[in-house]
């Protein structure tokens, strides 16, 4: 049975703009469900620059990108939005009654009255190493590009590949969960956070993990499910290791992805919108933040926030064509909850 969710607005993208749209929708008493391909909210702020200070958010002379996301999450709490994280929205269909049905990569279905695309630069997709047969073992057959649920690896033999922070962090974490962890890195040093690299080294010295440097995972083998990997050293010497899961962690890179195929007017990989309410060429579908384009567009968080406020007015009118909404300031109402 697919997981079916029903809501007023489905927001595609949990970047800063998608998150703030939840707040603006909440003020209009519209319920939101948010979907993001990443396991955690924040979009570019979390994925590319969590520790960078931002200086152009009104009222915050300086705020770290990661803290801004935490604050946005706190700000929308009263509206109880629901989330589907780690799944990409693949398809959407407009039904005869003007509502929408969205489908994710993992089979979740979202029924909603309006769609707000806040997809930024596109969904963040894993960088894939050049390993023979990689795709054959995707989709639950042994290759995992993200650790969404560490419990899945309890008691399992896993091989992690990569040399960045996430490879180090997950090696350290899963050392206590999996029955065997091997970290394969093509270099000889780790340039990630010094303390995580040190921890990996200590676990290796204590015999709790295996560390294979100057090497790459080059082949995957298995019958239906992944069973073995070949690890080849830079010197050409190869070794085959049995395992249950291969976790290549080489960072993520944004790709426009399916949004480009939804029949919305596009220009240079961005969705064209009407600046009256940030509606797209499909009535009931709106696009806000970095994903949209119009004359004078600036790709800034501040501008996305403004677009979110106007978009919600447009979505309200689409959902309730006969209801009149009289704008009240939040200071008059307080922050209402749903």
């Amino acid at each position: 049975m697919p997981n079916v969710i029903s809501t007023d607005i489905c927001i595609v993208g949990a970047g800063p703009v998608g998150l703030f749209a939840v707040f603006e929708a909440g003020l209009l008493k519209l319920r939101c469900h948010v979907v993001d391909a990443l396991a955690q909210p924040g979009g570019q702020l979390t994925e590319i620059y969590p520790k960078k200070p931002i200086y152009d958010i009104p009222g915050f002379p300086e705020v770290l990108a990661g803290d801004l996301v935490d604050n946005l999450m706190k700000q929308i709490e009263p509206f109880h939005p629901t989330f589907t994280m780690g799944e990409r929205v693949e398809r959407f269909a407009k039904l005869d009654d003007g509502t929408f049905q969205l489908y994710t990569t993992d089979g979740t279905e979202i029924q909603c009255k309006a769609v707000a695309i806040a997809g930024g630069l596109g969904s963040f997709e894993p960088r894939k190493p050049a390993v023979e047969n990689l795709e054959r073992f995707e989709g639950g057959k042994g290759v995992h590009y993200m650790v969404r649920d560490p419990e899945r690896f309890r008691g399992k033999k896993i091989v992690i590949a990569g040399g960045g922070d996430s490879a180090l962090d997950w090696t350290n974490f899963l050392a206590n969960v999996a029955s065997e962890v091997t970290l394969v890195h093509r270099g000889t040093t780790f340039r990630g956070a010094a303390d995580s690299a040190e921890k990996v080294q200590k676990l290796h010295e204590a015999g709790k993990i295996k560390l294979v440097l100057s090497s790459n995972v080059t082949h995957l083998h298995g019958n239906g499910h992944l069973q073995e990997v070949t690890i080849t050293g830079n010197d050409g010497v190869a070794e085959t290791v049995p395992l249950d899961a291969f976790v290549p962690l080489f960072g993520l890179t944004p790709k426009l992805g399916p949004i480009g195929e939804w029949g919305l007017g596009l220009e240079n990989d961005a969705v064209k919108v009407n600046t009256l309410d940030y509606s797209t060429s499909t009535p009931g579908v709106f696009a806000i933040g970095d994903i949209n384009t119009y004359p004078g567009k600036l790709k800034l968080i501040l501008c996305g926030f403004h677009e979110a406020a106007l978009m919600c007015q447009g979505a309200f009118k689409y959902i309730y064509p006969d209801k009149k909404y009289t704008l009240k300031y939040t200071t008059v109402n307080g922050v209402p909850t749903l």
Partner: protein
Amino acid sequence: MENDIRIYVEEAPGQRRELEAPTDMGLSLMELLKANDYPIQAACGGMALCATCHVEVLAGPALPEPQDAELDMLETLPHVYEGSRLSCQIRLHPHTDGLVVRIAG
């Protein structure tokens, strides 16, 4: 132009396109490649944070050594080459005249 240098982009093995580049505008190689419509996303705008501007330097003059931020980012990529660099970290300068690169993706 007097300040212009030449950069070569290897589009296929043995097939090089010549780009003329000004050196008096403080441009990076990433900006030059983007301006010439190469498929470089440069999501972070040149801050050595996204690695979407990865190139392989094939030949040409010696470049300044990469700094820590660039090395950190290159470390996270699944494949790198001997001449791997982030093009946003390479300034166009009279000393970079004749550089040959390939978009590494």
